[in-house]
């Protein structure tokens, strides 16, 4: 763990990352208001942006990039499991009403 601390970014870098996050948020809000123009692409784009922000915070602010692979596997595994399970539930609930 001690060696991983050495690689952590500098404060300047953190501020730059935060600016990126802020810009992404601004785009999200803009997308909300331009839904009529962007149309069907709005929701996928919004999800894409949220995932991007998520990865940035987890990877850099939470230092997951610099962590041991055990931790990475665990967190990412939990993430994937949750995604699969809940996708199935949502799809099943949505489709049950049509059959």
């Amino acid at each position, binding site marked *: 763990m001690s060696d991983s601390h050495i690689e952590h970014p500098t404060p300047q870098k953190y501020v730059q990352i*935060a600016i990126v996050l802020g810009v992404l948020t601004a785009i999200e809000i803009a997308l909300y208001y331009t839904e009529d123009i962007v149309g069907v692409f709005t929701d996928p784009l919004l999800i894409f942006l949220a995932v991007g922000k998520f990865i940035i915070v987890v990877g850099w*602010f*939470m230092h997951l990039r610099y962590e*041991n692979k055990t931790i990475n596997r665990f967190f990412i*595994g939990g993430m994937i499991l949750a995604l699969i399970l*809940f996708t199935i539930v949502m799809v099943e609930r949505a489709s049950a009403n049509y059959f």
Partner: protein
Amino acid sequence: MSDSHAYPHEPTGVETRKLGMWVFLSTEILFFGTLITTFMIFKGSDFPGMKLTDVYDIPFTSISSFILLMSSLTMVLAHNALEVNDQEKTRVWLLATAMLGAVFLAGQIYEFTEFYHKGFELSTNIYSSSFYVLTGFHGLHVFIGVVLLLALWGIGQRQKGLTLEGGMNLEFVALYWHFVDIVWIVLFTVVYLI
């Protein structure tokens, strides 16, 4: 953790408590996953009555979301300051984080009150129920985070200052805080924007 004796620990090289914290956060994914799934299922249904879009105040929520996002920056700066053992800066950034969190919470309370006055109560319909329980559960997490941050700040006032050793130290509070932040990143999109 030290191996003062021949008794071995941590064959993986990860600190035990950090590992425990990440395991905890991984299960938190499932907590919020269940809440979000329920919310999505109900959001997609067409039950008559007041809709979420009837009460939302997107500009307001955008600002409070931005505030919570920036609290992650101050948190990571506090962590960074402690890594180079700058106690003064650590305390300042900690307090800043706690304050930003408190502002976010105040915003949420204001938002809930507004919605309530518009007639959008907990038991109005499934939209309101799932909205309040989901965002309320997140709010509870923010509240606990603020308490932990203030506790750390209090400990930091002592002569010895803060360290990155020992129990619920700054690193773990930081991990928790960032996690609460990423949950809101998802919630902001899923609950409000989509």
